[in-house]
């Protein structure tokens, strides 16, 4: 085959420039540390890298949200802890107020202490996060959850919780509804309350009572009335809708009524109640289904009760026993909430850790995919430059041969 000179040189120089090209590519790889200079170098790999990077970026924003949600979860746990502590202080004071040796002024000073706890509790309910959001104000988190209106703490937060996403399809509590945390708690023993009649003059009071047989419990407003029958104290229990329960019909009151023997249990419709002391004839106790209280209302009622001068120790006793029962319910509620918050908090932290791990692992994968193997690049680099030198050497040789040919003497 004839090899034309022009083509020969052209081909040779084409080869050299091609080698420079691939050398240049290797140098770029070595410079940037990246395998791909353009996506078109390997579109499939580039797509893989990009979609992984997108995923990591998305997770990163979830990760940031998770950290914020985690700090909220911690706030929920610590504030619930404080609320539980304050409640137990209140319960201690309440116990001491119940002591028979306390007089009106002792109770008034206890009331003053309780006022301090009231504002403590309010500031707990109005806990703010770092950016000034009220964490117990639900979806109205810009304003305090509880404000004082005419001396009464009222909930003015939102009626629903807000959530934030901490992973795709996983959201967690971000602000809670204060009225569900600090309110919506049954008073009394959780099922019913017992109050002394306003006209009571005797010295009897009752325990908070309990439902001993929930199957036969009938929710109703019952009135226990004391009367006499042949000089002995008897009692009657009438339900607002159940009608007379004790004595069982057709017995009548007071003729057929059971005798009150002092410090005895009264049992009816699944309810058991212990009455202490001696009531007067005509004294009544009312048993009502529990209604919902909030911490602030109950505490404020207690303060009012302790500030009011005592006229009938038995009635005061009855009221304090009920308050004690109610705060028992509040304490239970807050402890439950605290443990739930603790669980939620560790769940959020676990998710944050999981996100961190995924981000970490995906980043490693991306680096594996995207980064050039520097060792390989350098060895290829030296191979290529060697080959380039060889080609240039060949080119020189070719010129040399031609020169020699031209210098030949004929």
């Amino acid at each position, binding site marked *: 085959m004839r090899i*034309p000179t022009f083509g020969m040189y052209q081909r040779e120089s084409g080869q050299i420039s091609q080698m420079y090209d691939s050398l240049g590519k290797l140098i770029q790889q070595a410079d940037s540390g990246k395998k791909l200079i353009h996506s078109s170098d390997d579109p499939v790999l580039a797509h893989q890298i990009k979609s992984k990077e997108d995923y990591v*970026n*998305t997770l990163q924003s979830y990760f940031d949200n998770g950290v914020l949600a985690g700090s909220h979860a911690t706030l929920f746990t610590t504030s619930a802890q404080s609320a539980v502590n304050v409640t137990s202080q209140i319960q201690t004071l309440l116990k001491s107020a119940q002591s028979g040796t306390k007089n009106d002024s002792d109770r008034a000073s206890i009331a003053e202490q309780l006022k301090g706890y009231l504002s403590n509790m309010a500031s707990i309910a109005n806990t703010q996060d770092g*950016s000034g959001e009220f964490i117990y104000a639900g979806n*109205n988190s810009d304003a305090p959850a509880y404000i004082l209106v005419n001396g009464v703490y009222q909930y003015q937060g939102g*009626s629903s919780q807000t*959530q934030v*996403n901490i992973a795709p399809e996983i959201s967690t509590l971000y602000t809670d509804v204060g009225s569900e945390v600090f309110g919506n708690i049954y008073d009394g023993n959780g099922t019913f309350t017992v109050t002394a009649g306003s006209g009571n003059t005797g010295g009897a009071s009752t325990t908070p009572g309990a439902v001993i047989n929930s199957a036969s419990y009938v929710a109703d407003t019952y009135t226990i009335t004391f009367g006499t029958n042949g000089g002995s104290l008897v009692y009657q229990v009438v339900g607002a809708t159940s009608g007379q329960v004790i004595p069982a019909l057709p017995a009548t009151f007071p003729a057929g009524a059971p005798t009150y023997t002092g410090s005895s249990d009264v049992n009816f419709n699944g309810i058991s109640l212990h009455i202490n002391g001696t009531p007067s004839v005509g004294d009544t106790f009312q048993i009502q289904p529990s209604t*919902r209280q909030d911490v602030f209302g109950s505490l404020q009622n207690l303060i009012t009760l302790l500030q009011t001068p005592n006229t009938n120790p038995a009635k005061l006793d009855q009221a304090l026993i009920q308050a004690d029962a109610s705060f028992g319910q509040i304490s239970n509620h807050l402890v439950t909430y605290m443990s739930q918050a603790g669980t939620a908090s560790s769940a959020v932290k676990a998710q944050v850790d999981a996100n961190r791990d995924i981000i970490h692992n995906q980043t490693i994968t991306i680096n594996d995919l995207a980064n050039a193997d520097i060792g390989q690049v350098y060895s290829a680099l030296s191979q290529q430059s060697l080959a380039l030198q060889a080609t240039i050497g060949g080119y020189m040789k070719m010129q040399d041969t031609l020169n020699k040919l031209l210098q030949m003497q004929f």
Partner: protein
Amino acid sequence: MSDITNIGISGLLANQYALTVASQNMASANVPSYSRRMVDFTENSFNQGVSVGDVRRIVDEAANRAALTTKSDFSKMDTYLQQLQGFEPVFDDDGTSISKYITDSLSALGKLNTHASDPASRGLYLTSLAALANRVQNVSAEIARQQQETNQAVQTRIGQINNLLSSIANINTELAGPLNQNTPGLQDKRDGKVAELAQYFNFMTQTDGAGMMSVTLSNGLALVSSQTAATLTTIPDPTDPNNILIAVQNAPGNTTPITNFIQSGELAGITNFRRTVLDQTQRSLGRLSISIAETFNAQNKLGIDINGNLGGDIFNDINNSSAINSRIIPNLNNTGSGGFTVNITTLGQLTTSDYRLTIGAANAYVLTRISDNAIMSSGTISGSLPQTVSADGFDLNINSGTFNSGDQYIVSPTNGAAKGLTLASTDPGRLALGWPVATSKGVQAQGSTGNIKVTAITDTTTSDFSVATQLNPPIKVVFLTATTYQLENATTSAVLEGPITYNPANGTIFPTPGSYDPGYRVLLSGVMQAGDTFNIDYNTGKGDNSNGLEMEKLYRTNILESGTQTLSQSYAALSTAISIETNKAQSGRDATLILKDQAEQKRDAISGVSLQEETMNLARYQQAYQACAQILEVSKTVLETIMRIAG
């Protein structure tokens, strides 16, 4: 005696000429179009020495043709690749890719959802959306600029082609002159022009007996026919005012479009790039823009803004009056005057193709999808307008006008969408992050663990939302027994519907058994007691992020391609398509380069000059020349000897 002298002289002359030819070959070694010459010596009759019979141009037509064709093919791929390589970085750069702007806005939204009422966070999210819109616009503008550039590139090349065509015709004319017949130099020059022409487009050449070369297009249209050259020009594309077509100027005002017959060369590379890459990318980007705008607008309308009002559009409405008019492009040659609008109806069905509406006789119409030529709809335009034709997620509304047989319209649902992606409101307060409905517990009887919550907002155009910042009516759910409830108007206490059976396993209230659907969904759960009440009212909570969380979901929702692509994925598909095309073009270019090199080598092996060979020839002719001189010397000596004898 004179014989020897004559032989010597003829050999001297012939070899001198051969030396000239060899020198000419050597001197022209670096002229690409030069075909080497070869001297044919012929013996003169009656032992009268030798003479140069012919100087041949060593040319092989087949090899030449192969070199031209492969050159066209290579030029096409090379230009295509160059254009793509300039285009790819627009989508490839991590810092400026649209997908980064999408992720950035998601991240801003995530932060905003932790403090929905914060003006700064709202502002940041809106700014991130503005940046996204801005980037889409920039990319769209860059595509439009490159579309313009391809027009200019075509026009510049047309000028050069016209030069070459007339040069070829001129050389034909010169060759036709009586003195220049069979002049190798002119033929070489013409071959050079033809080779240059092959860089721009593909054609066929034919040389007739008189040495006239004709250049014809692949469809047989003559561009150079003996001594006359056609003039190429560009004309506006009747189907797309932004595009140009290549045409042959027959007479002033009379042109024949030839774009479709140019399948190779730089011109094909450029028009290909425009048609398969630029136009397609612009449409894909348009569809992405429409999807972004409509998805976020629809969600924002389901929420309430910072002032408690129902949300409006974040981006400009996709079906605004200018958009619906810009989606139909009448053919410049139409004689009728149809008035059309195009409304986008379903994002999931939207394709990235354009559609062709052809009017036939008697108001018949056919709507064809251009990407695969599938007929979408055909029928007759009725006398009573407006008439709506639905296809692939859009409605073509035929509103008015006259329709003549042969009229054509391009229906382009994505036209101008990327350019038009702009924020409708720059007020961060207008971001509707909360839900317009809030629920609360009313009376809870003992033993009740009932709960209520809003689970979804489906439609805020119902009459329930007809009064600003109020529910019309606010609703109270009243439990009549533990398992039945009724819905009351909370203001008037009028019973709306009931009793309705409560199912604790699925306590969604709406739509009710009586088919009342207020446009929101509320879920009851837990154990209910008679007397329990729940309130459903307008939301006044400023910190509500419920709709914001729904917006976050949009980023993961499969919206496009019949619900198989998220917005990000749609962008990734678009940019990956370009990378793949670039990659393909790279290997296509490499392959055509090899073919071109091979064909050139083959041609050069036949026609190219080898300096080594010519050096040897030179030496050979030189020696022959010296030998012939020796003959003369001998003849002189012989003559002198005879003279001496005679003398």
